[in-house]
């Protein structure tokens, strides 16, 4: 058994290092985008359109991953696209986490009518196809970064609320909570001081997974051309353009797709790795 546990531990460690490493790289690229991007991501050159990546004939060293049909540098657009993706992940993920976890804690710990109202809302939310709901909200609010963030928060709070409600419920039934109440703590402060620390590991895991989901939602919205304005490069809009010219210039689709794939995979592996890390049995 000790051997198996060692194996699991090693695998968790590698997973955390790899996914954490890629995300760190991406954050640095986003912060220092103007310094490291070889070209202006918006600069068009209609004569330099659809140049292949550096290892193929007819490439230009100034455009290492090639250029799209308007002659814009693919690498620079990916680097600048990381700003939008990570910005959305951070802001939308955190806000969703705060609102969803708070509602979940209230429903699970206070029970009674707050639980009834919140659970009923969750049921209604679960009957919406999420992508359609997101597109609908964007159509209503108009495109833009704020709209995307609001849409993600409005749609995804139930992910946190559902899980945290169940956890808060089982924590609330434990003796230490009862003794805190007997000792005279107010209910709301018991919730924050006693329940919250015990569900915090779950919240952290969910937050990491939610950031990956936010990146995907932003990409889907820019794919259907409902994200932010077209003069800001995003991975989703690059993929949408690449999808159209897939038979003429595969690199316009492939490189942003690989970036998006690795990013989503990293967030998810980081979340799973953290889950195992917090698991007392495995530890």
């Amino acid at each position: 058994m000790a051997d198996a546990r060692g194996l699991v531990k090693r695998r968790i460690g590698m997973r955390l290092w790899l996914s954490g490493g890629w995300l760190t790289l991406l954050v640095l690229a986003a912060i220092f985008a103007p310094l490291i991007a070889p070209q202006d991501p918006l600069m068009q050159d209609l004569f330099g359109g659809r140049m292949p990546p550096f290892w193929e004939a007819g490439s230009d060293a100034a455009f290492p991953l090639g250029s799209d049909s308007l002659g814009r540098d693919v690498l620079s657009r990916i680097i600048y696209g990381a700003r939008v993706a990570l910005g959305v992940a951070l802001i939308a993920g955190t806000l969703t986490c705060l609102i969803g976890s708070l509602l979940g804690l209230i429903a699970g710990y206070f029970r009674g009518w707050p639980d009834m109202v919140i659970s009923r809302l969750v049921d209604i939310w679960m009957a919406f196809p999420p992508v359609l709901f997101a597109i609908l909200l964007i159509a209503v609010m108009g495109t833009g970064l704020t709209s995307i963030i609001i849409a993600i928060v409005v749609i995804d709070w139930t992910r946190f609320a559902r899980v945290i409600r169940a956890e808060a419920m089982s924590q609330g039934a434990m003796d230490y909570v009862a003794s805190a109440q007997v000792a005279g703590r107010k209910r709301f402060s018991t919730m924050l001081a006693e329940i919250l620390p015990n569900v915090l590991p779950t919240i952290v895991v969910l937050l990491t997974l939610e950031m990956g989901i936010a990146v995907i939602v932003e990409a889907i919205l820019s794919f259907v051309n409902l994200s932010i304005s077209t003069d800001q490069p995003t991975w989703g809009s690059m993929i949408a353009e690449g999808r159209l010219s897939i038979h003429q210039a595969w690199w316009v689709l492939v490189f942003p797709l690989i970036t998006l794939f690795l990013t989503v995979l990293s967030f998810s592996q980081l979340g799973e790795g953290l889950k195992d890390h917090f698991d007392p049995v495995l530890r």
Partner: protein
Amino acid sequence: MTLIRRILLRLLTMAITLFGVAVIVFFVIRVVPGNPIAMMLPPGAGEEDIARLKALYGFDKTIPEQFVIWLTGVLHGDFGTSITTRQPVLQLVLSRLPATIELSIMALVIAVIIGGALALTGTRRRGTRVEGAIDVTNGMALSVPDFLWGLVLILLFGVLWPVFHISGRVSPALDLPFSTNFYLFESVLRLRFDIWADLVSHMFMPSLALAIPLAAIIAQLLKQSLKETMHLDYVTLARTKGYDENHVITREALPNAVLPTLTLIGVQFTFLIGGTVIIERLFSYEGLGNMAIDAVINRDLPLIQGIVILFALIFTVVNLVVDLTYAALNPRLRHG
């Protein structure tokens, strides 16, 4: 709780949920800043025309009044008229629904086959490298959503090795002799296997994209339940009777291990249906989801309402069926 009471309670919650969805969609889309009427008229239309058109679609009344009128219509089967196509919403939606149902069911079948095969193989070869490889594949498949798998499939089987169609539902050159929109089912009934093959070649990529995450979930849970069952005494007994390992897994362990997976498939199937919206868009598949995105972009309010309500109805019905199947299969719930 008896089964009848259980059903009645579920129907009641279902009605409340659907009403909630209707209220939210109705009010959310009426906060739209853009005026859908203005987009329908040619430039230079007078105030009079605008007023007439507003009255025609009921936009001149207050929002609660509009809601009552719309809800009364819906209860009578009238979902209003689409603004962009001027056709009844119900007719439009029903014409696209079969395409989405066929896609979802095909995806479900693929997911069950792949997931089941992986779970059985993993159990047969437990503790070996094969099981390790299956676990790693599952982890990958679960981490990445259907949208990205769709794009990967487009690259692999649409461009690198173009063996499947990656766009549309059926080749436009084909002459379709069908009287319903359930093309896939009807092509089998009419023994038109040429059309059937063309349909499958179009549907395989989008349905596989939808199936990959679900297949991974099935593989993971079923393998885990199988492994737990393999340690039970009756399985050991079957082994001592001399049955070979394949028989023990499929005939003895599987029937007892399958119930949790069936429940999970039911829940996950609604997520799969939700995924059709973007997958249909990605593969230009003429289903409900693709129509929904067009409706949102064109601000076709009556059509959006109709589609969202229909999706919500499908979700709640699937959940109800899952719940009842579970109750019927699980003796503790049936008699409890």
